[in-house]
C-alpha cells in the first residue's frame, strides 16, 4: 500500500460504497461492516508479497500430526483437550496421517527401535514441515540419557525447530512453543531441510563386525542403515 496521499480530491471524500450497498440491498447486514472492512475503506485489497501471505497463512493454520510416544504425549493430549485447547491458536487439528500434517510434535523418548520409524513418519510428511521437540527426552534423552537403547535427542534423527524443555513440559509451555513456532513461520524462518546429524550410510562403509558377517548374504546392498552412535554425535 502506498504511503503517499492522493494528490487531489475529487467530489466527496467519503469512500464510495455503491457496490457494497447494491450487494446488501436494503437493510444493513452487519457482516459486511467489520472493523477490518472499515479500515480498508472502499478498496478492500492488501498488497503483500505472495510468500509473506503464504507464511502468514501457514502459521495460522497448522495441522498437527497425531503422534504419541511417551509420557509427554499425555500432556500433549491435555494441550489439545479442554482447558488448554490448542485450537484457539489455529493449531488444534490433529491428523492421524502424516501425509496431511504440517507439524510434528515429538512427545517422548526415542529408542533405537523407534528411531527409524519416526524418521519414516517424518519423511512422509509433505514439505514444508516443522517439528516441535517436546520434553527433555527429545533434547538429550532426558532422564534416560544413559540408557543403552535410548537415542540422545530427536535431532539425531530429524531436524527440530523448537525445543520445549521440561519433563514433561506443562501444557502452557507447549502452547508457548507452538506460538513461537508460528512466529518463526510467519517470519519465513522455516526449518532447514538438510538433516545433518542423521547419518545415512551405505552398509559397506561400516566396519565389518559380527552382525554384518552374519547377515552379509541377506543384506541388500542398497539398504540404508541408521548409525546410532551417541558418543560421536555433535
Amino acid at each position, binding site marked *: 500500500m502506498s504511503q503517499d496521499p492522493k494528490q487531489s480530491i475529487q467530489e466527496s471524500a467519503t469512500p464510495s460504497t455503491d457496490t457494497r450497498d447494491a450487494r446488501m440491498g436494503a437493510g444493513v447486514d452487519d457482516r459486511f461492516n467489520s472493523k477490518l472492512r472499515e479500515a480498508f475503506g472502499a478498496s478492500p485489497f492488501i498488497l503483500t508479497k505472495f510468500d509473506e501471505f503464504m507464511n502468514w497463512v501457514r502459521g495460522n493454520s497448522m495441522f498437527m500430526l497425531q503422534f504419541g510416544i511417551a509420557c509427554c504425549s499425555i500432556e500433549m*493430549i*491435555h494441550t489439545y483437550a479442554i482447558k488448554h485447547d490448542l485450537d484457539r491458536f489455529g493449531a488444534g487439528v490433529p491428523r492421524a496421517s502424516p501425509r496431511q500434517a504440517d507439524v510434528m510434535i515429538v512427545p517422548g*523418548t526415542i*529408542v533405537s*527401535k523407534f528411531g527409524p520409524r*519416526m524418521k519414516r513418519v517424518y519423511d512422509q510428511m509433505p514439505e514444508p514441515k516443522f517439528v516441535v521437540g517436546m520434553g527433555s527426552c527429545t533434547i538429550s534423552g532426558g532422564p534416560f540419557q544413559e540408557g543403552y*537403547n535410548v537415542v540422545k535427542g530427536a535431532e539425531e534423527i530429524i531436524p527440530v525447530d523448537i525445543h520445549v524443555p521440561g519433563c514433561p513440559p506443562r501444557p502452557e509451555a507447549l502452547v508457548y512453543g507452538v506460538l513461537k513456532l508460528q512466529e518463526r513461520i510467519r517470519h519465513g524462518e522455516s526449518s532447514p531441510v538438510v538433516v545433518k546429524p542423521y547419518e545415512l550410510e551405505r552398509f559397506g562403509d561400516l566396519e565389518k563386525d559380527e552382525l554384518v558377517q552374519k547377515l552379509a548374504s541377506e543384506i541388500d546392498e542398497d539398504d540404508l542403515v*541408521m548409525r546410532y552412535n551417541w558418543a560421536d554425535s555433535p
Partner: protein
Amino acid sequence: MSTGLEKEAETSVDEIAELIGERAIARDDHLNAPGFVINPADVQDVLFDLRDVAGYDHCSCVTAQQYADRYETIYHLTKYGNRTDEVSIVVPTTLEEPVSQSGEPVYRTADWHEREAYDLIGIEYEDHPDLRRILLPETWQGHPLAGDYDQTKPQLVTLAEHANPLQADHHDTESETMFLNIGPHHPATHGVLHVKTVLDGETVVDVDPDIGYLHRCEEQMCQQGTYRHQIMPYPDRWDYVSSGLLNEWAYARAIEDMADIEVPEYAQIIRTFSAELCRIASHMLALGTFALDVYGEFTATFQYTFRDREVVQDILEDLTGQRMMFNYFRVGGVAWDLPEPREEFFAKTRDFLDELPAKVEEYNDLITTNEIFQLRCVDTGILEPDVAKQYGCTGPVARGSGVDYDLRRDDPYGYYPNLEWDVVTEDGYDNYSRVLVRMQEVEESAKIIQQCLELLEEWPEDDREIQANVPRTLKPDTDAEIYRAVEAAKGELGIYMRSDGTDKPARFKIRSPCFSNLQALGEMTEGEYIPDLVASLGSLDIVLGEVDR
C-alpha cells in the same frame, strides 16, 4: 474392608519341600517367600506339581539375572486365591551353557517373560515356542543387562526393518489372508505398539504384538541409582498416565520391606489418599480413550474425561508440585505434608468428590447405556477367567473376567485394611465388563479418598509424622532378595530387587501388569472381526511405557 471371598488354604513350606522332594538341590529363601533351587532340567516337572497339586496358579513374574559365576532364572509363584502364599523357584545355569527348560507349557505367561530374559540377559529356554528378541531390535548384538555388556556401545539399526505390508511377498496366493501392520504409529494403539495382524477378510486370524518401541532401559536406570533418592523419580515414568504415585508405591513398598522401615501412619494415609486420586485419573483416561476408540467420541466423552482429569491433576499438583511426574513418595514416607492452608486443599478435594457422583452418572448415560457402545463391547473380546489366570492377567482386566483378585485387599499394605471399600468384579468376561469395572472402581476410589480425607482432617496436629527415620545411605544386607507388588492402576505392579551390599541394587526387575495383560490379546481377538481387535486392545488399557519399560 470387604472380606470378599475366603482365602485359599496356605501351603506350608514343609509341604512344598515335600512336594519338590529330591528335585530341590538347595534352599535360597527370599524375604517375601521361601525359595527352592532346582535343576534346569526339572523346571516343567516342578512347576506342574506346584500348579496342579499345591495350587500355585499365578506365575506373577519371571526374573533373570547374571551372577559372577552363573545365570539364574526365578519364577515368582503365588495364588490368585491367596496372594500372600508365595514361593520362588530358582533355576541356576552355568555361564558356559545358559540353557534351562521353559516354564511356558505350565504358565502361558512365561512365554514373554522368558523372551525378555533371553533378550536382556541371554538365557536360553529349551522347549520355548518362539524364543526371539522381544524388546530390542532383531539386529541387536549382545544382551544389555548381562554382566560383561558395555552399555555405551553403539549399535546399528537397519531401516529395512519396516517391511511394506503390501509387498508382493506378503500376499499369500494359496489362502485369502492378508498381512497388516497396525502401528507403531497409529492412534488406536495407545502409543507405540506394533501389532502384526493376519486377516482373512475382516476376521483376525493371528495377532502378534511387537513391543519394544519404548524400551527406555528403566531397569538399567534403577540399577544405576541409589536406593535412597535416585530411583524414586523413575517409577513415575513407567505407567505415565498420571498414575505415578501408584508406581512409586511399588518401589517404596519393596525397599521398605527390604530395609525394614516402618512408615508412620499419617504418611500411610496421605499415600493412600493420593494414590487413589491417581487411580481415578488413570481410569478416566482409559475411559476417554476407549470411547474414542470404539465409537469415535472425540467431542463429549473424551473431553469430559479430560476435564475431570484436569481437576484431579490440579489437586495432585497442589499436593506434590507436579502434574504428572510427582516424585512425592520418599523411602519411609512422603516428601512433605499437605499444602497450607489445609482447609482450602480439603475443600477443593471435597468439591471434586461431591461432584463426582453426578459425573459418573453422566458417563453412564453417555457411554455404558449407549446402544452403539454396547453393540461394540458386549460379547466382544471374551477373556475367560482360566485363560486370564494362565496369562497372569491382573487388575481391571482380571476383575472384568470375574477373577476376584486385588492386592489392596489380598496382600494388604498402606492404609487400605482400615478402610471400607469393595473389590469390584464383573462376570461378562468381555470388553463391556472391563469398562464397567473401571467405572465402578472410580467410585470405590472416591470412597477411599473420602475416608482418608476425614482422617486427615481430624488428625492431631502434633502427630503429623510424614517420614520415618531412614539412614542417609541405605545399604540392605548383602544378597537380600525381595519381590513385592502393589495394586497399580493396571494391575499387579511388582518389583524384584537383589542387594549386593552397596547402596545400589544389583538387580532391579519390574513386573509390569500391562506386559502380562497385553499377552492375552491374541486369545481375546483371534477369530473376531478387526474392529473388535481395536476395541479389545483399548479395553486392556495398556501403557507402552510400562509394557516396554
